[in-house]
């Protein structure tokens, strides 16, 4: 079994469908710490992605690059740029390939985490999406069964949110009000978690559907 353009298209469809009910939740989470537009921005970005015909791309790498290009014209937000960076990293890693094995997903997520750190000048432990990506990469490393990966990824998202919720944000706008951020989820990390759960076919509470 392998990750194909069909896998990517299905993931995008699930993420797109989830944003219909997630937009206001993420806006509200962001409004407590920032400017309150994370949901709106992400909904637009994922709608842009969903409109890209990734199934017809020449290969998986080209599909990811098409997403990066479409995203680069869609948003300039910091979170959006990190998502675009992720697509570019995945595109380079899978250039010219029709599929990549599930056993390579962990390493790919780790490389995305490093690329996002470099682009955003962020460090681990600052309570950002970077910590979410790190947890995701660690949870999926060494696994090759998609069902096991889905369960591990969903669990890792719950764990990392629980781990960081009591901590202050030390990066981005939220670091200015670090004390106010204690007890709240980082909007970027929360967005990642919600989308991982949606793509993995899980309810918010963690029940596996597929």
């Amino acid at each position, binding site marked *: 079994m392998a990750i194909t353009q069909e896998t990517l298209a299905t993931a995008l469809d699930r993420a797109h469908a989830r944003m219909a009910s997630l937009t206001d939740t993420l806006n509200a989470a962001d409004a407590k710490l920032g400017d*309150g537009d994370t949901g709106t921005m992400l909904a637009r970005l994922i709608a842009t992605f969903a409109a890209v015909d990734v199934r017809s791309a020449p290969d998986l790498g080209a599909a990811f690059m098409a997403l990066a290009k479409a995203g*680069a*014209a869609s*948003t*300039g937000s910091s979170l959006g740029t990190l998502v675009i960076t992720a697509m570019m990293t995945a595109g380079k890693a899978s250039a010219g390939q029709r599929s990549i094995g599930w056993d390579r997903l962990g390493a790919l997520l780790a490389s995305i985490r490093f690329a996002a750190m470099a682009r955003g000048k962020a460090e681990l432990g600052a309570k950002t999406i970077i910590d979410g990506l790190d947890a995701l990469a660690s949870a999926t490393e060494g696994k090759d069964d998609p069902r096991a990966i889905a369960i591990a990824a969903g669990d890792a998202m719950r764990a990392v949110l629980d781990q960081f919720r009591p901590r202050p944000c030390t990066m981005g706008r939220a*670091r*200015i009000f670090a004390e106010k951020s204690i007890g709240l989820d980082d909007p970027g990390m929360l967005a990642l978690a919600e989308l991982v759960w949606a793509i993995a076919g899980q309810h918010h509470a963690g029940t596996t559907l597929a």
Partner: protein
Amino acid sequence: MLDGLCLAHPGLVRIGEDRRAIARATPMAQGKVGLVSGGGSGHLPLFTGYVGEGLLDACAIGNVFEGPTINACQDAIAAANGGAGVLCLFGNYGGDKMNFEMASEFAAMDNVETRTVLGTDDIASASPQEAHKRRGVAGLIYAYKTAGALAAQGGDLDAVAAIAQKTVDRTRTIGVALSSCQIPGAAGPNFTIAHDEIEMGMGIHGEPGIWRKKIRPADELVDEMIAMLLAERPQGTRRVSVLVNSLGSTPFEELFILYRRAARQLHAAGLAVVRPLVGPYVTSMEMGGASISLCFLDEEIEALLAAPADCPFWRVD
């Protein structure tokens, strides 16, 4: 919105494949340092309204409260390239920084030299010890003016970057909000505040401030704001320009009430007020409230503030 801006001000044109950048309609002067800025929509006249003679050469504009896209940043830099390099001068925000950085990397591949200076004037957003982490808000326009003037006078890229940085270093802003803005498409306002409350230090996107209290007389608020700004007064400064800025829905009448008190307090502190600015220079859509910026002058900055400039929202003869 951008189409309307350009129709109303024929000196401006939309450029780029995505048409999300604004440039001067006249060709870029060869040999002149280019000056570009950018940021999210929702702050008019910032950012696109400051493209003009003696100010910006081009500007990349994002969606409401989002940084401009990489594509738009590239388009703006290309439009401002007159062969002498381009200064990217914008507020200290994550998305803007990442996208201008990526665009500058692309520009370097085309042998276009760039420098970056970040606006960091919002004193509510970090301590003086971490001033480099502060957000850029209304005071950024002072750096537009001085850097734009020096570029127009033939200054080289390093000199234009240096005066921009010096102006940023000598500018401080604090804002106060009475009501929220609302992002188009969002279910509700960015934040809620009671009719009898006021918040000090609110960010330009509605980021939380440093305190929220019951509403107080304007003079008391201005006294506190000026005291906070003067706490970071550079040693030996005797002259200052002051900007009393509407965050969107605050009318001129109320701005002049604030300015009256601010001018009095600055005079009492031994400062001569030069070239006061009162009006909607950097808004946050319909947010109720105002910010006060002080640009602590030296001879060089004051001379450049006096240099001719002309854009849709700021004219100096």
